[in-house]
Structures are given as structure tokens and as C-alpha cells.
């Protein structure tokens, strides 16, 4: 909890720093704050987890692991922000603060133990993002993305809320333990409200994770938002949403698996196919990544579909791998866009000849996203597949395999562009922060790929 408080204070501090025009201090202070939060979380690791504050939050291993992951990724995103926000606006401090706010929301989402906390967490996360997506105020795409995101987000919030209400109507409580107890106490006379509540919660959460058919905002918003915000959205926010999703289902709804699993199954398959097939036809790297994030949501849904003791670990590793790779990919995209002004695949042509380092790290990221062994992405996929097979969804896995093969095609397009398509271009200048992020990203991707125990042992 102290970490969350630290972050809230950090955000306020940043606002003040902005007020006093201490721009130079913003980045170091934010990073320090994140570091402090990570340290605070790590200290909590070994303590026995009990629901705190009248059962509002629970900092168990699950929460701590996902929190640290979110903090770490946010740190990477911050590293990338050098020179980035400056080009957008003078109010850099506010942006930092908003990102921290959104992060706070994410941390709440991963550690909630009461539907009220889930709701508030999600909303903090989302409201901050509505703003961040629109911070390029003169940019039509950014405007449009913000408005679309806001409208659809608000709309889906209604369903989420309706769902929470119905659950409340059935059980009389928002507390996860109480809800679980209700299920245990009435195994045969569960109120219909409860069932519909689950369905509506699935709808609300599917929207947040970008699963079909509630994914429509994802490509447009990811494309329209400033790249750095897209990075944050597709990594931290998605991870947190999944963690929340999983936490809710893992704690409460496991006994009703027979009821909701078919629904999720259909959603998963739809998500996989829509994400992958649409990604095949993209010309913009950024938009391709957006669709790819949809398809990854499909893979991560496997973790919830085959819910069990191993799901948490699987989703954790998967989202870590996916997030790290995405950060690298978006970082390179920022650089390329800066030098060429385009987000299309053609903009990457011949990159390997001039910037072998960039090309190499991006390739590692793409291989990881595609799930090639010796990268973190493979470990994630492997754990997901293991989980699914343990539940004997062999047909589903065959579909997943088909999709994974399709994935190769579009992930490799950028590799093909970088390495195999010659083009006249100048060397892209890369500042130290970017170099560091790319290095860390590639290194971690490979390290986790080779020694998955680094992460897999956490949960």
C-alpha cells in the first residue's frame, strides 16, 4: 500500500515540479519514485498476505509480481519519454503525473480484493488514458482516438458496472471472499443475477483487454495515440487489465467454469482470428502492432480459459514477455518515425545496414512476439499452450497454431524490411536512454528465453 501512496504523492510532486518549471528534474524524480515503489513492493514479498483495509486490497504474490512488472515497464516507458513529450507540449509535468496516475490505477487493479477497488482502479487507469491519448491536441488522429476511446470506454463502463451491480444483487457484497463464499454456500441455487453478472463482467473486462468483439477501439486508438502512450497502453494497461480479469475469475468464478468457459472460448477464438488476420493486411507498423496486441490478448485469454494454479504464472510470463518486446518495438518505431516521418513498413527499409543495433533489437522483439524459442515470447506461449492442453482443448490449440503461423508473416515483415529491402536512408540517431531501453529489452527477452526460471518461478 505504501507504494501506492508513494506514487500518488509522486504524481502530486511532479505537478508541483511542473509548476516551478523544474523540467530537468522530472524524469529522474519519476524514475526514483518508481524505484522506490518497486523497493517497497519487494519488501512486501515475503510477508504473509492478508486482505487489508477491510478487505479492499490484497498484496499477495500475484499482486506484487504484476505490480513490479507494471512499475518496471512504466520505468522503461519513462526512459523513452526523454525529448518525446517536449515536442508535444510545454506541460510535461502533467503528462508524467497522468501516467503515474494511470499506473496507480493499474496497481489497484492488480491488487483489488473488492469490486469497488476494481471499478475505481479501472476508471483511474482509463480516465487518465482518455486524456493521454488526446495530448497531441492539434493532431486530428490524436483527437479522434481520444474521443473514440472515451466514448467506447464510457459505454463499456456501463456494462462493467451493471455486471458488478448484478453480482452485488445476488450476493449482497462487493468483497471477493464473500462472493466466493456465496458460491460455496449455494452451489445449486445460484441466482440468475449472478450468471448474467458474470457475462456482463466478461463484456466489460473484454473491452479493457481488447478482446473481440469488444476490441474495435484498439486499432484506432493505438494508431491515433502518441506512440509513447500507445506503448504504455498496450503494455502496462493491458497487463493490469488481464491481471484484474484473472484475479477476479481465479478468486471467485472458478466453480462456475462450465458456464463461462464456452463464452470465453468463443471470444478467444474470435480474438485470435480477427487480430491475426487483420494484422496480415496492414501497411502501418503501428497499426500492425495494434492488431497484434489483439491477437496477444487472444493468447492471454488462454490463461483464463484454462484457469487453474498455473494460469497466473503463465499470464505473468506472457505479459512480461509481450510488454518488454512491445516496448522495444515501439521505441524503434519512435526513432524511425522521427527520422522518416512514417509509420509504415517501408520506413524500416534498409535499417539494418545503417543501424544494426536498432535492427537487431527490433528483430529480437519481433521474434519474441512471434513466439520463437530462446526468446521470452516463446516461454510465454509455451506456458499458455501447456495450460490449455492440460484442459484438453486440443482443437483450440490447433487454431492457435494456425494463428501463430500467421503471426510469423506479419512480424517478419518488418524484419524483412530492415534486413532484406535496401533503401537510401541516413543513420537514425539514438540517444543513450533509447539505447539503454533497447539493450535492456533485448537482453531481458533473450535472458528470459534462455532462463525462464527467472520469471516462471515467481508465481
Amino acid at each position, binding site marked *: 500500500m505504501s507504494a501506492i501512496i508513494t506514487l500518488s504523492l509522486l504524481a502530486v510532486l511532479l505537478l508541483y515540479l511542473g509548476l516551478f518549471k523544474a523540467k530537468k528534474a522530472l524524469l529522474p524524480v519519476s524514475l526514483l519514485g518508481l524505484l522506490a515503489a518497486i523497493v517497497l513492493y519487494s519488501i512486501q514479498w515475503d510477508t504473509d498476505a492478508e486482505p487489508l483495509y477491510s478487505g479492499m486490497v490484497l498484496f499477495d504474490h500475484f499482486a506484487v509480481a504484476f505490480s513490479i512488472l507494471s512499475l518496471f515497464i512504466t520505468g522503461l516507458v519513462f526512459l523513452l519519454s526523454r525529448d518525446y513529450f517536449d515536442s508535444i507540449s510545454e506541460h510535461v509535468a502533467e503528462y508524467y503525473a497522468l501516467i503515474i496516475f494511470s499506473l496507480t490505477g493499474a496497481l489497484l487493479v492488480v491488487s483489488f480484493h473488492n469490486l*469497488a477497488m476494481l*471499478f*475505481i482502479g479501472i*476508471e483511474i487507469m482509463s*480516465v487518465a488514458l*482518455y*486524456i493521454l491519448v*488526446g495530448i497531441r*491536441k*492539434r493532431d*486530428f*488522429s490524436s*483527437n*479522434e*482516438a*481520444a*474521443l*473514440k476511446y*472515451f*466514448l467506447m470506454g*464510457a*459505454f463499456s*463502463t*456501463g456494462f462493467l*458496472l*451493471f455486471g*458488478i*451491480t448484478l453480482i*452485488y*444483487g445476488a450476493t*449482497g*457484497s*462487493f468483497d471477493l471472499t464473500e462472493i466466493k463464499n456465496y458460491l460455496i454456500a449455494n452451489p445449486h441455487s445460484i441466482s440468475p*443475477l449472478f450468471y448474467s453478472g458474470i457475462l456482463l463482467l466478461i463484456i466489460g473486462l473484454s473491452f479493457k483487454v481488447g478482446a473481440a468483439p469488444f476490441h474495435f477501439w484498439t*486499432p*484506432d*486508438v493505438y*494508431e*491515433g495515440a502518441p506512440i509513447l502512450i500507445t506503448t504504455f497502453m498496450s503494455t502496462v494497461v493491458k497487463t493490469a487489465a488481464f491481471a484484474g480479469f484473472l484475479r477476479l475469475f481465479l478468486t471467485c468464478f472458478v466453480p462456475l467454469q462450465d458456464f463461462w468457459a464456452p463464452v470465453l472460448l468463443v471470444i478467444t477464438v474470435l480474438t485470435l482470428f480477427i487480430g491475426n488476420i487483420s494484422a496480415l*493486411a496492414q501497411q502501418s507498423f503501428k497499426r500492425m502492432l495494434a492488431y497484434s496486441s489483439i491477437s496477444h490478448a487472444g493468447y492471454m485469454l488462454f490463461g483464463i480459459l484454462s484457469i487453474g494454479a498455473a494460469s497466473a504464472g503463465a499470464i505473468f510470463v506472457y505479459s512480461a514477455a509481450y510488454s518488454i518486446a512491445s516496448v522495444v518495438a515501439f521505441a524503434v518505431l519512435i526513432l524511425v518515425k522521427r527520422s522518416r516521418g512514417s509509420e509504415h513498413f517501408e520506413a524500416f527499409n534498409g535499417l539494418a545496414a545503417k543501424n544494426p543495433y536498432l535492427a537487431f533489437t527490433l528483430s529480437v522483439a519481433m521474434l519474441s512476439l512471434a513466439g520463437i524459442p530462446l526468446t521470452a515470447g516463446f516461454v510465454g506461449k509455451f506456458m499458455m499452450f501447456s495450460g490449455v492442453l492440460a484442459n484438453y482443448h486440443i482443437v483450440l490449440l490447433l487454431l492457435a497454431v494456425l494463428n501463430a503461423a500467421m503471426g510469423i508473416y506479419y512480424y517478419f515483415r518488418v524484419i524483412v524490411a530492415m534486413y532484406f529491402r535496401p533503401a537510401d536512408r541516413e543513420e537514425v540517431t539514438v540517444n543513450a536512454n533509447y539505447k539503454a531501453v533497447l539493450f535492456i529489452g533485448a537482453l531481458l527477452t533473450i535472458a528470459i528465453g534462455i532462463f525462464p526460471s527467472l520469471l516462471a518461478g515467481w508465481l
Partner: protein
Amino acid sequence: METVVTNLQGVPINHYILFCSIIFAIGVIGVLIRRNVIVIMMSVELMLNSVNLLLAAFSAYKGDASGQVFVFFVMALAAAEVAVGLAIIVMVYRNTRSVDINALSRLKW
């Protein structure tokens, strides 16, 4: 006042749910059929409010106060959302001179 209230206690909980569902659906319809962003936002408010009422009804039905407390959070959210939403609308309007959602289709495919 007391008597009026007690008189009303005979309403089955199902009717509350049905009523709120209808209002919720009206909100959804509003979102679907209007093009004015502000009206769409109002429809969303309608949806949120129907949920609020349902929460209150359940709260009363269960004799549990947390439902009514939850309504506060929803209201806080509604306020925050409206503030942000209207800010976005204003921003968009400055650029496009329109609040028509159909004008927003540059990002696609």
C-alpha cells in the same frame, strides 16, 4: 412520509431490475442512434444512473449499505468522466468544428 414509504415496499425486486434494465437499454439505444457526441454522453449518463438506482434497490433489498456507498463512487466517476469527456469534446470541436461522431473516421482499417 413514513406511510408512503412503507406503502411502496410491496414492489417486487424483479420490477426494479426490469425498470433499470429498460432505462439502461434506453441509454444504449441513445448511444446507438445519435450522432451528437454530447447526447451520446448523456445517454451514457442514463446508463450509469440506471445502474445507480439498481444498486440502491439492491441495497435496500439486502439491507446492506455498501450498495448505496458504491453509488457515490459511480457518481464520482460520472463527474470525472463528464469533465474529461467534455474537455475532449471541446478540444475536438476546436479542431473539427463538429461534434458529429460520423466525422471521426480517419482512423480505420
